[in-house]
C-alpha cells in the first residue's frame, strides 16, 4: 500500500513538474512569437515607406526630407572647429541638451 502511495506521489510530482515546464516554455515561446510578429510588422511598415519613397524623384525626396529647426547652442556659432572627433564629442556632452541626441 505504502509503495503504491509513493509511486502515486511521484507520478503527481512528475506531472506537476511537466506542467510547470509546459507553462514556462509556453510563455517564452508566446513572448518570442509576439516579438517576432512586432518586428516583422515594423519591417513591413518600413518597406511600405521605402516603396513610397521609390515612387518619388530624388528632387522631390530632397525637398521634403531636409528640415530646418533651431538647435539650442549648436546653432549659436557661425564657425566651430575641433581638432579631433573626441574633442567634438566632449563638447557635445558638455554643451548640448540630452534631447538633441548627440550624446
Amino acid at each position, binding site marked *: 500500500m505504502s509503495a503504491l502511495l509513493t509511486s502515486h506521489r511521484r507520478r503527481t510530482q512528475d506531472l506537476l513538474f511537466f506542467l510547470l515546464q509546459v507553462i514556462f516554455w509556453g510563455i517564452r515561446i508566446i513572448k518570442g512569437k509576439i516579438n517576432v510578429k512586432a518586428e516583422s510588422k515594423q*519591417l513591413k511598415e*518600413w*518597406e511600405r*515607406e*521605402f516603396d*513610397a*519613397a*521609390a*515612387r*518619388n*524623384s*530624388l*528632387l522631390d*525626396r*530632397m*525637398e521634403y*526630407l*531636409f*528640415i*530646418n*529647426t533651431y*538647435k539650442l547652442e*549648436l*546653432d549659436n*556659432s*557661425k*564657425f*566651430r*572647429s*575641433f*581638432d*579631433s*572627433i573626441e*574633442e*567634438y*564629442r566632449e563638447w*557635445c556632452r558638455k554643451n548640448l541638451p*540630452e534631447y*538633441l*541626441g*548627440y*550624446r
Partner: protein
Amino acid sequence: MQVFSYKQGERLAEVFNRWGVEYLFIGKSGAVFYGYPDTTQDADIFPAKTPENGRKLAAALRELGYELTLDNENELIAGKDFVQLRSGPFDLDLVFAPDGIETFIAAKARSIIIDNRFPVASLDDIIASKRAANRQKDRESLPRLEAFRDYLRSRNLTALPTNPL
C-alpha cells in the same frame, strides 16, 4: 538660412567640382541621396583632409556664400577633424575624420555617384560611421537605415531611382 535642397546640392556639387574639392556626402544626408526616407537638418560632407583640399574647400565655400575669416580658412588648411558651418546658405558639417571609416581614399573607392553629380559614401560606410559614433540619435536611426540597405540589396539596387517613371 535656407533648408538644404536638391538645387543647393546641385550648386554645391558644381562649385566643389570646379574647384577640384575631394569630398563625399555622408551621414543621414548622404543616405537621403540613396533614397532613404527620413528627415535631417543639415548636409554632412566628408572632405579629404589635406592642406591642398582645405585650400580648395575654403575657396569653394566662399563662392557658395559662407563667411570664412582668414583664421577659419587657415584651420581648414591646417586640418581639423570636424567643422560646423552656420554662416552660409545652409547648415553644413564638415567631417574630416568620420568614426568607423579608415581613410578618405578607402571610402572614395567604395562610394558611388548618384544622379551623375553627387559623390556619396557607400551605405555600408554611412552605417559603419553611425554605429561607431554610437550617439543616441545614431542608435535610434540604425535599425531603419539597415533595413533600407537590406531593402535595396533584396532588389539588386544600389540606390532608389532618381527619376522613377
